């Protein structure tokens, strides 16, 4: 039982699993293989077997274990199991042993047949091999016989073969000789037929041989003949070459043949170039004819096309042929070609420039750019072919120059557009006066001007942008990538235009009145607002637009937006200040005339406000409306609740009485000075022509200040009678009633008007002021 257990496979395994192999090794190997598999699957041996975990693999009581010890097992059974179980296990064991025995028998029976058939097969193979050996021996003998025969045949044929070879050699030589003898006639025939290529080939073939055997008289004769014919051939070729009627490729062929005939290359080279020159000059002449003043010039695109296909194409062919033919000439030849190309190229460029110059005035940029593109593209081929001639560089230069001129042209255009806008505005400003209506509002005009200028700028940018378009061949040149964008477009065109706009606007300030004051004030106001708008928004918008479109690189210093804005603001400020001056002057002149032309001594008692004062108020109101159209209101100082009701302090205050009291005692002037100085102490100095801010109130304040100061100065130069003084009083009160609402600080108006009345009082030998109530009544009535 112990032996069966040791030899038999484990109870779960079927005996058929391992039929071959020594019985003792099988379980060992199987276990090993199983173990490796289990290891691979990460299972412990016990788990895989489905047994309770943790049995000792070395357990000697395990029936299937490697260390099974029958003694220990029996001992254990005997000790641990009751009798019934012992009996059970005994029967179980017996049954298993029986099953194993029968299994082994079956195995032996099954495999017996196989052994027998294998033995039969081996026996049959042995017989077959013996037969094959005999046949191989026979084959070897036959082969030996064949070799022998073959050797014998070769030996017999050897002699004849040598003879045949010699004969063949003689035949070839004779053929050659025949060719030589026939050569003169062949050459003649070829020349007659015009197959120059063939002739030259023959000649080339025979040349060396004839050279070698020229000591033999017969060959000598042939050679002489050949030379004569060749000379004739060369003559004819030259003839054909000179005639030059045929195109460049044929000429090139001629030259090639001539070269093969050993004509001097130097001379040929000259001649070749001279011919090429003739042809190219023909092209240039036809181009020039197109330029000519009389025929309607074809458009520039057509022109450059002609030039490109005719001249540049020809030049390319010549250059290619030359380089191919005269490659052996080395640097001297290349230099000659370069000089040739340079000279003709410069003439071509001159023509192109003349044509482009005609185009400068024209408006169609896209056509021009396309023409330039064509031109530039065309010249790239010869440029690559003839780097030394510098054609591509020259072409780029021309394109750059044209681009620059184009920029200048656009700048001019923009300026002209701006001036045109101004003219339109002037007309619009002048026209509605007749219609009696205010016409199109200033705001509308401003919007028109701004949008029209902006659209012009955009159009110019778009036109100029064509130069840098991707598909244009020269757009990747460094000039167009860098300088053109930053210096040309941004600085030259846009900044230049904005500057010139500011200058134009400022020039309106610089001709104050001297040239007849032709500038309408409304235009000044409008320009000022335009510049201010530019400062706040438009400049940065335009520059951003430009920068975006042209991707300006920062290698060149560019004018920053802030500088331009400052300039625009300065211009706006100057314009507005000038506007104030002009308008102030208009009102001043009115006031001055009114003061200077009146006889103040003999005037009558005032009944009315003088018409001129009403006019002043009317004009001021008109200006207020005008400015209000374009500028914001601005800030005022806080006002008293009802300023118009204010009475003249000069008259109500007893302190002031001394000012115009009769006082020619020497002490009186002291008082006057003192009083006036005390009054001055409490008032600020008034800057009459001070710079204004960008709002309506400031503008109006400026104008009113200028007017009132003029009134003051004029009053001081006159002498007033009693009623004259009273008239001034009335006028001033009237002004005060209506002007305070326009200014930032009504105190200013009061102060100046008080000053006027006080001055008038001082200039009056008989100062009897009018009752304030009467003044008010007159003013309210007027």
């Amino acid at each position, binding site marked *: 039982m112990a032996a069966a257990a040791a030899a038999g496979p484990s109870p779960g395994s079927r005996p058929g699993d391992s039929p071959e192999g020594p019985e003792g090794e099988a379980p060992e190997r199987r276990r090993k293989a199983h173990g490796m598999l289990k290891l691979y699957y990460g299972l412990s041996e016990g788990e895989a077997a489905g047994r309770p975990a943790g049995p000792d693999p070395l357990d000697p009581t395990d029936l299937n274990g490697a260390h099974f010890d029958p003694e220990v097992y029996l001992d254990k059974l005997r000790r641990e199991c009751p009798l019934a179980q012992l009996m059970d296990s005994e029967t179980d064991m017996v049954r298993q042993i029986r099953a194993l025995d029968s299994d082994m028998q079956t195995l032996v029976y099954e495999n017996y047949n196989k052994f027998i058939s294998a033995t039969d097969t081996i026996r049959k193979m042995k017989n077959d091999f013996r037969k094959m050996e005999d046949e191989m021996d026979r084959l070897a003998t036959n082969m030996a016989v064949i070799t022998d025969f073959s050797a014998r045949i070769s030996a017999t044929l050897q002699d004849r073969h040598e003879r045949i070879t010699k004969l063949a050699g003689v035949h070839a030589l004779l053929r050659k000789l025949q060719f030589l003898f026939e050569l003169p006639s062949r050459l003649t025939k070829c020349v007659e037929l015009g197959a120059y290529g063939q002739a030259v080939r023959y000649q080339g073939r025979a040349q060396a041989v004839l050279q070698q055997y020229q000591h033999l008289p017969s060959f000598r004769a042939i050679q002489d003949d050949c030379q004569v014919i060749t000379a004739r051939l060369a003559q004819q070729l030259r003839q054909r070459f000179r005639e030059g009627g045929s195109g460049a490729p044929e000429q090139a062929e001629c030259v090639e043949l001539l070269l093969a005939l050993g004509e001097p290359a130097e001379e040929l080279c000259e001649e070749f170039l001279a011919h090429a020159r003739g042809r190219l000059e023909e092209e240039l002449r036809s181009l020039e004819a197109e330029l000519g003043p009389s025929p309607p010039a074809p458009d520039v695109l057509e022109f450059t096309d002609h030039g490109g296909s005719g001249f540049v194409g020809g030049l390319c062919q010549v250059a290619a042929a030359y380089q191919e033919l005269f490659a052996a000439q080395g640097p001297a030849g290349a230099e000659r070609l370069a000089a040739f190309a340079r000279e003709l190229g410069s003439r071509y460029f001159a023509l192109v420039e003349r044509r482009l110059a005609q185009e400068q005035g024209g408006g169609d940029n896209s056509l021009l750019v396309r023409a330039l593109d064509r031109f530039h593209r065309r010249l790239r081929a010869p440029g690559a072919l003839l780097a030394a001639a510098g054609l591509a560089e020259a072409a780029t230069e021309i394109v750059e120059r044209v681009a620059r001129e184009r920029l200048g042209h656009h700048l001019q255009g923009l300026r002209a557009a701006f001036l045109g806008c101004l003219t339109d505005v002037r007309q619009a400003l002048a026209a509605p006066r007749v219609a009696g209506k205010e016409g199109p509002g200033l705001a509308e005009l401003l919007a028109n001007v701004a949008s029209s200028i902006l659209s012009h700028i955009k159009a110019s940018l778009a036109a100029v942008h064509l130069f840098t378009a991707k598909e244009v061949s020269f757009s990747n040149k460094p000039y167009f990538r860098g300088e053109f964008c930053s210096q040309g477009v941004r600085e030259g065109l846009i900044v230049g235009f904005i500057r010139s706009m500011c200058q134009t606007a400022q020039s309106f300030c610089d001709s*104050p*009145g*001297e040239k007849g004051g032709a500038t309408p004030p409304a235009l000044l106001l409008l320009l000022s607002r335009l510049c201010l708008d530019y400062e706040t928004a438009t400049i940065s918008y335009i520059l951003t637009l430009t920068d975006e479109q042209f991707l300006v690189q920062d290698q060149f210093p560019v004018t920053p937006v802030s500088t331009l804005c400052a300039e625009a603001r300065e211009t706006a400020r100057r314009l507005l200040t000038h506007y104030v001056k002009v308008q102030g*002057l208009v009102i001043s002149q009115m006031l001055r005339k009114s003061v200077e032309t009146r*006889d103040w*001594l*003999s005037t009558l008692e005032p009944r009315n406000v003088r018409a001129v004062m009403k006019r002043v108020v009317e004009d001021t109101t008109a200006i207020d409306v005008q400015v209000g159209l374009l500028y914001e209101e601005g800030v005022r100082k806080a006002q008293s609740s009802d300023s118009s009701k204010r009475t003249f302090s000069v008259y109500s205050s007893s302190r002031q009485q001394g000012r*115009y009291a*009769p006082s*020619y005692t*020497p*002490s009186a*002037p002291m008082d*006057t*000075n003192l009083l*006036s*100085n005390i009054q*001055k102490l409490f008032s600020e*100095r008034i*800057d*009459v*022509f*001070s710079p204004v801010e960008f709002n309506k109130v400031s503008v109006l304040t400026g104008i009113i200040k200028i007017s009132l*100061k003029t009134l003051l*100065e004029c009053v*001081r130069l006159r*002498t007033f*009678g009693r009623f004259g003084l009273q008239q001034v009083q009335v006028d001033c009160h009237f002004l005060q009633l209506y002007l305070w609402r326009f200014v930032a600080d009504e105190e200013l108006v009061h102060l100046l008007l008080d000053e006027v009345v006080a*001055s008038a009082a*001082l*200039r*009056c*030998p008989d*100062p009897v002021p009018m009752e304030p109530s009467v003044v008010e009544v007159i003013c309210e009535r007027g």
Partner: protein
Amino acid sequence: MWPHRGISLQAPILPEKEGEIHIIDFDDENNIINKNVLLHQAGEIWHISASPADRGVLATCYNRTSDSKVLTCAAVWRMPKELESGSHESPDDSSSTAQTLELLCHLDNTAHSNMACVVWEPMGDGKKIISLADNHILLWDLQESSSQAVLASSASLGGKGQLKFTSGRWSPHHNCTQVATANDTTLRGWDTRSMSQIYCIENAHGQLVRDLDFNPNKQYYLASCGDDCKVKFWDTRNVTEPVKTLEEHSHWVWNVRYNHSHDQLVLTGSSDSRVILSNMVSISSEPFGHLVDDDDISDQEDHRSEEKSKEPLQDNVIATYEEHEDSVYAVDWSSADPWLFASLSYDGRLVINRVPRALKYHILL
């Protein structure tokens, strides 16, 4: 003694039929101001000029009001002897003794009223005087020690528009044969021998021309000022463009005066109540004279706080004087001390100032 009565335009304007002339002595060493009052009984004075030959003689234009009409007349006067001598024994009692001018002769005739201006021949013997009346320019010969004035010759402006002379100056160059006048916006030059116009600067200023002055050292050079707030310098040989324009004032410029000896110093007074002293080096007769020294930082004793003392290498404003509270109507240099000048404003304040010392040393050294 100073001043040579150069200033007193509307000085104390009295609304009566008489004016006063204040002779003011300024003692430089002691900084004492002394005032003498002369009554000018003919009427209020609008223009005054002193004879170059006789210190005691002066000419005035004055207003005479009669029958509710204002007439502007001109006359030649003589000052009392004691004032003329320049002695001032009684410094403080000037107010008590108002003396009277002695009338030498009238410069009017009935044909020409409204005298705007009287000008003496600058270098002569005090015999020739020009007066401007409306649109006439009148050359008078004073005879028998100025007791009689004879109209020697005259010229008049023809044409339309406002043809009223506002101001005139007699050129010290060319043997005193040239006079320049201003009317409206136009400057004109006259030859006193033929009384014909020699040049004309149309539209010299945008508005009325108020005053003009000749460069005392550089012939052909002329300064003018006007209501357009500008001071312009002209070369009378080329009248199309001004040589230089200053625009410092903020209101009408009433007066412009060259310094008598250092013509780069130009003084202007304006109704913005400022007096501005400018340094016009580039067009002066000594343009390259003085290099800047860095070490003359000025001692401040003489300097007003408002003064902006600068290195006078190029044209600039030396100082702006803002002592006046009202319009300044007259400025003039001292004829005795080239570094002293006075200005007079509407409120009757007379301010005497000195050229900043640093600048003075610049010019002198």
